[in-house]
């Protein structure tokens, strides 16, 4: 393991009723200005880079995932649909498709395309920017696709435009091209060595940073780790501080390398940064 060490920062604020989630906290993202977006209940909440609540608005259904594009449009994945808001929270578009957008648990962008993970059908869908369906990713192969007993499809597009997708039932992170070619995978099962993925199905969630590092969360026991692109473990960010019953802890990384992770049981957003990082 590398010599990087992380320290815990104060949680993203939840002082005052507006900044708190009442029943569910599912999706997390950061934008290019390091603002933090969280969805849960039936609301989007935006915090500034220091964790203060800036804005909030309702969604028509409880959000499962969130992403922000280069024009600050906010995409919220829900059951049966994707809602798209402008930066002020005005609803700009809704993409509905009961079978292709069964339960949208991840969203990211590649070029002008929008990629969404549909956990109901265990597939990543590729749409153009206008919402026209293009192709599936990770579904039509002989490997039985994504095995997700944990119930979420999770992926992120790296700086090279490669889709890094969690396949927790196989204890792997798989790499796909936009046209559904499997390039390979990293990761293996190991219940003792922290370099491996433990339990029945891990990692559950992931994010990538600008350097191509892959940040993952695991369940039972909750843990946050960072890997290099080649699959070597860089650091264990955290293995405590979460409710032990957590699963599917969403994760996001900002431009400073700060790591944000949801605790969906305590409805908190935990924050970490490397030792010695300028706060």
């Amino acid at each position, binding site marked *: 393991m590398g010599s990087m060490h992380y320290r815990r920062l104060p949680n993203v604020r939840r002082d005052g009723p507006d900044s708190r989630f009442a029943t569910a906290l599912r999706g997390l993202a950061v934008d290019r200005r390091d603002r933090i977006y969280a969805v849960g209940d039936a609301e989007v909440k935006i915090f500034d880079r220091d964790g203060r609540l800036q804005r909030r608005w309702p969604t028509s259904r409880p959000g499962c995932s969130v992403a922000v594009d280069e024009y600050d449009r906010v995409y919220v994945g829900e059951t049966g649909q994707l809602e798209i808001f402008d930066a002020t929270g005005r609803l700009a578009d809704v993409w509905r498709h009961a079978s292709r957008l069964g339960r949208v648990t991840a969203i990211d962008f590649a070029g002008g395309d929008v990629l969404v993970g549909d956990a109901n059908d265990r597939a990543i869908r590729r749409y153009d920017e206008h919402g026209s369906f293009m192709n599936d990713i990770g579904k039509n192969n002989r490997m039985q696709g994504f*095995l997700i007993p944990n119930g979420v499809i999770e992926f992120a597009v790296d700086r090279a435009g490669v889709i890094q997708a969690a396949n927790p039932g196989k*204890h792997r992170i798989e790499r796909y091209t936009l046209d559904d070619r499997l390039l390979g995978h990293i990761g293996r099962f190991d219940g003792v060595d922290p370099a491996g993925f433990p339990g029945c199905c891990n990692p559950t969630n992931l994010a990538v940073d600008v350097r191509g590092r892959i940040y993952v969360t695991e*369940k039972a026991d909750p843990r946050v780790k960072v890997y290099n692109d080649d699959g070597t473990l860089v650091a264990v960010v955290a293995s405590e501080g979460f409710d032990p*019953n957590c699963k599917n802890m969403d994760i996001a990384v900002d431009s400073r390398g700060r790591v944000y992770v949801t605790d969906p049981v305590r409805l908190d957003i935990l924050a970490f940064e490397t030792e010695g990082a300028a706060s």
Partner: protein
Amino acid sequence: MSDGITRRDALGRVVRGTVLLGLGSTAGFLINKAEGQVVWQVDTSRCVNSRLGEAGAEVCMLCTTQCVVAQSAVRAINSFRDCGRCYVCPAYYNIRSAVDERGLPSEKLCPRDAIRRTPIGFVDPEDPANNFYEYVIEEEKCDGCGLCVKACREPLGLGSIVLKVRHNLCVDCNRCAISIACPHDALFQHKVADALEPTLARQPQP
């Protein structure tokens, strides 16, 4: 028909008996018990081995040690509907044991080797991680120790394995010895007829 039992009643009982047999061995054996009779059962939402929110609690083996029946009338069952059919099942494997040359845990969890693991559906011989697996509890070997139940509980597993009183083994003690010992008041009685109810659980306690 005598004793006020109509042909329709009799027919109904035959149908019910067929349904019960279709529900599996326990339901089948229930037919041999009088409809109004009460039987003991485990409330899985109270049993500390299966109830949610108990991460880290020690496994409770009182169902094994307290039952008056040798090897216990309580056995583990796996609900296939809820099972994830995982490649690495934490109830089947001791997931803390060293990884072997196949990349799998080298030890099983069950001390009685009572769980059978079989790949199902399309089987990829080159990469076994691509397969789904069926986990069957061989009840004749199981003694209800609860180890697999605790390992399968959310969030580590999906909670598809639970402990159940098997009515073909239970001798229907007036006061179930496990119910006296259970620290979580998880044993309860219900009417045989209620076994047909799809969601059998005790009503929430105040």
